[in-house]
Structures are given as structure tokens and as C-alpha cells.
């Protein structure tokens, strides 16, 4: 649905040229929620703005719903933008219009007549759960309510794609969750395709089907979350399971075991102790719901090293568990 190919963008700033996008390619399938995560300054904002050409790339292609946006004239681009809704971190609502008025703005711009505007605005405010505040001005609404208006405005012209530019970053955690829930609900009900950018892994974890990690304008890693978490050495997976750094005094072999789907409730530790006779200690663990499924990662320390430990690891791997060896004791110590 969204296809970005080989995007390059360089800004010439006061302190020299800044490479905001460096050969970025992303494919977002229909009805998917795709998250791009990265530090501030990684190029996320530039990336999401190329999708509706608020920012024009220096080179590369941008296609939404099979339509090449860079080839469109001004009028064609405006029409294409009616099919691409966008929500913003700071909501960007008109202070002089009510919630309903802000939603109707989108419809006025799209050339919808007065009666239909009124009907559609009511309908969409109802969908985002804000019918009771339709006549309130933004100054009278909470952050979460403002973002609901922002979402309603973005959805008013029946777009196929929703772009979310840090939509939950200005909100408290509880409100963030309710807004993310809302985005997932509208994806399910309206069959939208969602591209979002965020600096919070929690957002990726909660609603995304796929994710990409952006660093200094480059995509470091991307894929479906279900695949990412079972990919050895995945940076995204490491960020999804926040395990602490190794303590300095570990003496044995340290392994990270990732459980996903069916293996999540397997008695691995008991098995290691019983079958292989190891007294394992747990250094850390994280259980997360990722892409709607339970998944977890446990960091274990197995005393010693050598063939017995290798056999135990091989045994775990044969059970379809992702086992990554994080630390092996040096020869001198063993």
C-alpha cells in the first residue's frame, strides 16, 4: 500500500549538510500497522513526511496505493492527499474551531457539501468516542481528546492510509494506551493501512505488526515483529525485551532464550536442571505482548562451559527456541 524506494534527502543547515534519509526503502502492506522507531534526529519525521510529500525527497520513489506521487502535478497531489490522513504530535488543531469544526475543515477542503459535512463529522466523532464534546473548542479539551479530534480530522475524507507522526508522544501513558487502542480499532474497522513513527519501543510493542529501526537516516533493520523477535542478534528484538546489562562478575555461560507463541509456557529451566543437571540462575526476564502474542526473553546463567553446556544449548535449540550465547567464560577461568 505504501512503497518507498531508495529515498535520499539532504538538508543544508548552518553546520553543513545533514543527511536525513540515506537510501531508505520501506514496504507497508495493506491493513498493516508499520512502526518506524528511532532516536530524535534519526530522520523519522522526514521519512513520514515524504509519504504525503510534505517533504520532497532528493531522489527515490514514493508510491501510495499504486500511485506514484512524485509524478503528480499540484492538483493531483492535493487529490492524493485526501486519501492519506495524518495526525501530529502537537495535534495541530485550529483554536478558533470546535471539535466538529476541525473535522469539517477536512471535508470543506475536500469539497463536501454542508449537509454531508455535518453528517460525516458527527459519524466520525462518534467513531473516535468524542460525540459529547463535538461543540468544545480545543482549549477546552484534554490532550487525549485533542488527539481524538486530530484522528477524526485525518479520517474524515475516508483515507486509505493513516500517517501518525509521534501521535502519542505528548500524552501521558494511560492516554497513550487509549489512543493506540483507538488506532488499532479504526485499522480493524476501516481497513486502514497505518504508518507511524515513534521514539518509544512501547508503541511498537503495543500495536505494530511490522517495524523498522532508523538510525542516522538509514534503516538498520526491518521486518514483521513475529519474525524479528526470533532473529538472532536483532537490535529491534533486544529493544523489545529490555534486559539489563550483564553484571561484571558472571563466571558461567550466559544465554538469552526467546520464547514466542507456543513455546512461551515450556518449563525450560526445570528441564535444564533435571535433564542436564545444571543449577541455572535467572539474570533477567521480560514477558511482552508483541503483535498480539505473548513472547518473552529470559537471560540465564549456566555454571561452567564446555561440551556439557554446548549439549544443553543444542538441546534447547532443537525445541525451536531461539538461544543466543551472550557470554562464555574465558579459558583461564574454566
Amino acid at each position: 500500500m505504501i512503497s518507498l524506494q531508495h529515498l535520499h534527502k539532504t538538508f543544508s543547515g548552518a553546520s553543513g549538510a545533514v543527511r536525513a534519509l540515506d537510501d531508505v526503502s520501506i514496504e507497508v502492506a495493506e491493513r498493516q500497522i508499520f512502526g518506524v522507531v528511532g532516536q530524535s534526529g534519526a530522520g523519522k519525521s522526514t521519512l513520514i513526511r515524504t509519504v504525503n510529500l510534505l517533504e520532497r525527497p532528493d531522489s527515490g520513489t514514493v508510491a501510495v496505493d499504486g500511485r506514484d506521487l512524485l509524478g503528480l502535478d499540484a492538483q493531483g497531489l492535493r487529490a492524493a492527499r485526501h486519501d492519506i490522513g495524518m495526525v501530529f504530535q502537537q495535534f495541530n488543531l485550529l483554536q478558533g474551531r470546535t471539535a466538529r469544526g476541525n473535522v469539517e475543515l477536512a471535508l470543506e477542503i475536500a469539497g463536501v457539501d454542508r449537509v454531508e459535512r455535518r453528517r460525516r463529522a458527527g459519524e466520525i466523532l462518534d467513531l473516535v468516542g468524542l460525540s459529547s464534546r463535538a461543540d468544545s473548542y480545543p482549549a477546552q479539551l484534554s490532550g487525549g481528546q485533542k488527539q481524538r479530534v486530530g484522528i477524526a480530522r485525518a479520517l474524515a475524507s475516508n483515507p486509505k492510509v493513516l500517517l501518525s507522526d509521534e501521535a502519542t508522544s505528548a500524552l501521558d501513558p494511560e492516554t497513550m494506551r487509549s489512543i493506540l487502542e483507538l488506532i488499532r480499532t479504526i485499522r480493524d474497522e476501516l481497513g486502514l493501512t497505518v504508518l507511524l513513527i515513534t521514539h518509544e519501543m512501547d508503541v511498537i510493542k503495543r500495536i505494530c505488526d511490522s517495524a523498522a529501526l532508523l538510525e542516522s537516516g538509514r534503516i538498520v533493520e526491518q521486518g514483521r515483529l513475529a519474525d524479528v523477535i526470533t532473529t538472532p542478534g536483532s537490535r529491534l528484538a533486544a529493544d523489545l525485551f529490555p534486559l539489563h546489562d550483564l553484571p561484571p562478575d558472571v563466571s558461567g555461560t550466559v544465554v538469552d532464550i526467546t520464547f514466542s507463541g507456543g513455546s512461551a509456557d515450556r518449563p525450560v529451566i526445570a528441564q535444564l536442571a533435571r535433564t542436564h543437571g545444571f543449577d541455572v540462575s535467572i539474570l533477567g526476564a521480560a514477558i511482552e505482548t508483541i503483535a498480539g502474542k505473548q513472547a518473552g526473553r529470559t537471560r540465564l546463567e549456566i555454571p561452567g562451559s564446555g561440551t556439557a553446556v554446548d549439549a544443553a544449548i543444542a538441546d534447547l535449540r532443537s525445541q525451536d527456541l531461539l538461544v543466543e550465547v551472550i557470554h562464555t567464560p574465558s579459558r583461564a577461568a574454566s
Partner: protein
Amino acid sequence: MIDYSAPDFWPILIQNVLQGLVQTLYMTGVALLVTIVIGLPLGILLVGTERRSFLERIGGSRGLSATINRILNFVVNLGRSVPFIILMIALIPFTRLVIGTFIGTTAAIVPLSVVAIPFFARMVEIAVREIDPGLIEAADSLGATRWQLVSKVLVPETAGALLLGLSTTVTSIINFSAMVGVVGGGGLGQVAYSYGYQRYSTAYIVVVIIVIFVIVMVVQILAGWAARRLAHRIPSTKSRTPLVAPPT
């Protein structure tokens, strides 16, 4: 010298001041209308045609916008820097062309408008510059035309600041309209000049000052009130949501 004790002194004064007031309001009102019609688009263009602004590519050309921007800035600076009394004289041929004469109240509207347009354009420029760039981005994301952006977003969202700028402009037009009076343009300025100065009547000066002061005050208060009404930024206590949700 005017005889204060003459029985018809005050009735004549009131009649003269009223006539001057009507002329001043007429000059100011028409000049203000002209100023809005020309100054508002001018101010918006001044901001919009800047680099990386919302009209940076008029007709798809960045060069055209840059050229328009330079020309407008030059014209506005020129208009702002020429002293009004000189501007008035310099405009005589133009005034004669537009109105047919350069003497009288109607003719005075031309220099008044010419001096007020760049003044108001700068006020509009300041107001539009203050707008949150996020609003322009949001309108762009909705596929707004430039006209929709200006008419549905920029002007309504800056209406409060525009009104305050307009009230400052009105004050300045009234100010200049008094100068017009000295050279035969009529209005309160002429009343003060020909009775107060040339015929040494302090009463005329005092009354004219009071009337002008009242006009300016009324304009400022009305504009301030309307700007607050338009802002919608201060939620009224009645409709504010309670901090604690009622038990369900």
C-alpha cells in the same frame, strides 16, 4: 478672536465639531476599508513568498515568489519611510487621477490609504508570522489549496491579532487624518486648526482632543473585546471538564 460669551458660541462649536467628526469618520472609514482590502493580501504575501514559506512557489516558480517578495518589501519600506506630509504632496497627481481633485475630504482618502496600507501590511505580516507552522502543515496534509489555506486557516486563526493590528491602524489613520485637515481635507484636524490655532480658541482644541481620544478608546476597547471573543483560548469555567471524573 472668538467671543466665548457670545450666546451662540457653544451651539456653533458643537455644530463645527460634529461636522468635523462626520468628515473624520468618513475619511477614516473609507481609508480603512481600502487598507484592509489591499493591506491584508499584501501582508500575507509578504510572509508567504519567503523561502520555505507557504507561497514559496507561486505558479510553481521559486524565482517568481522571491521576486514578488523583494518588490513588496521595497514598496512597503518606501511607503513606511516617506513622511506623511511629503507623501501627501507627492501623491497629488495620483489623487487627481483617481478622485478628479486633490482638495477636500474625499481626496484625502487617497494619501490616508497609501500611508495606512504598508503600516497594516506589516501588522498582518507580524500576525501571520506568529502562526504555528503545524497548522499550515496540517492544512497541507489535508490537500488544501493555497486559497483554502489562507481563507480557512491563516486568516481565521490570526483574526484576533489582525483585529488588534487593525485597531492600531485605525488610530494611526485618525492621526494622519488630522494632518490632512491642515491642508484643506476637512475633519476634526481642520476644526482644531482653523478655530483653535488660527483663531486662538482653546475650547475648540480641548473638545477636539476629547472627541478624538474617545474615538480611539472606543476602537481599542471594541477590538480588544472582539479579539478575545475570537481567540477561544481561555475556556469558560462553565464548560470546563471537571478534574476528577464523577463516580460511575
